[in-house]
């Protein structure tokens, strides 16, 4: 078999991975596969191993599966959420099947959110913004990127306790299970700790921004109960 055919088959195997995986590893995986081919590794071994990885990746991404100890602390609820609660959190017409993701570790909010969104294949980017201690681990804004044609319903906020003790900070989101819109979520981080885990990610500059969505107003009590603890 010619090298170009081998490369095409391996590329086809790579396309089986979720978009999130491909955007992260796709480029490097292609380079790596070429190097392995050059080393004499059989094409079928490379393609087969990638396909095995696809199976594991898909199995791992099932919403009901516990996704490792880094996510063990996160509260994720998957279900037809109680209608009474949904009525207060989502607009009329929204899907009744939702996922509620609540930040449980303010200091690790960025990673918790990013992992949770990725594990459910949401096209939601997480951006860090250095903030005062009170807002660390709070969701500062939720912005739709580009024109949204999503009809699965709307994302709604879950209000909880601010790190400094006040109430009403946004510490979670309820997202329709089939939400496919492109969204950017900005989360507050402590300035000193923000570059430990993701030095490769661009970060927004430390400038005052619109924080209207996190003003500590009265919160609907019991919002957190929409989540189902997995730990």
């Amino acid at each position, binding site marked *: 078999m010619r090298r170009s055919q081998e490369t095409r088959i391996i590329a086809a195997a790579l396309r089986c991975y979720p978009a999130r*995986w491909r955007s992260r*590893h796709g*480029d*490097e*995986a292609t*380079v*790596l*596969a070429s*190097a*392995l081919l050059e080393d004499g*590794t059989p094409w079928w*071994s*490379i393609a*087969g*191993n*990638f*396909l*095995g*990885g*696809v199976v*594991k*990746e898909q199995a791992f991404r099932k919403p009901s599966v516990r*996704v*490792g*100890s*880094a*996510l063990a602390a996160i509260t994720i609820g998957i279900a037809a959420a109680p209608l009474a609660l949904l009525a207060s959190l989502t607009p009329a017409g929204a899907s009744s099947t939702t996922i509620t993701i609540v930040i449980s570790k303010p200091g690790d909010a960025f*990673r918790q959110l990013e*992992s949770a969104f990725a594990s459910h294949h949401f096209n939601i980017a997480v951006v860090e913004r250095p903030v005062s201690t009170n807002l660390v681990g709070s969701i500062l804004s939720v912005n739709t990127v580009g024109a949204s044609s999503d009809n699965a319903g709307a994302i709604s906020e879950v209000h909880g306790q601010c790190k400094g003790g006040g109430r009403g900070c946004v510490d979670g989101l309820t997202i329709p299970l089939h939400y496919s819109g492109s969204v950017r979520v900005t989360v507050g981080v402590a300035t000193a700790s923000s570059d*430990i*885990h*993701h*030095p*490769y990610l661009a970060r927004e500059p430390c400038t005052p921004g619109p924080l209207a969505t996190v003003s500590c107003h009265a919160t609907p009590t019991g919002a957190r109960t929409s989540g189902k603890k997995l730990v």
Partner: protein
Amino acid sequence: MASSDVGNSQDVLRRAGDASVLILTSLADGPKHGYALIQDIKGFSGVQLGPGTLYGALDRLERLGLIAELPTEDRRHPYRATAAGVTALRSHLDALERVSMTGRLRLGLGTV
């Protein structure tokens, strides 16, 4: 069961899989990207990790906070072991050493 749990409370790598242990061992002497990891691991262990296995393990280790990605170099992502990763590897190697010593004693091979 108490004796089987000795020393395992800190051994987060116990259930992470052999590939994860091999990767952390490879990263113990400095950052490496995917291809360099495969080559290094093959060199010191004789195991050739497949690329799908490699990326699965890298994702798992990163989620556990045991490795971190460094800025991309020429379409490749180098990874480094975090402080937590070094600690986890040390704990795991200690646990393996205890098993090794026990096995050798029981086989009449003495201690290493």
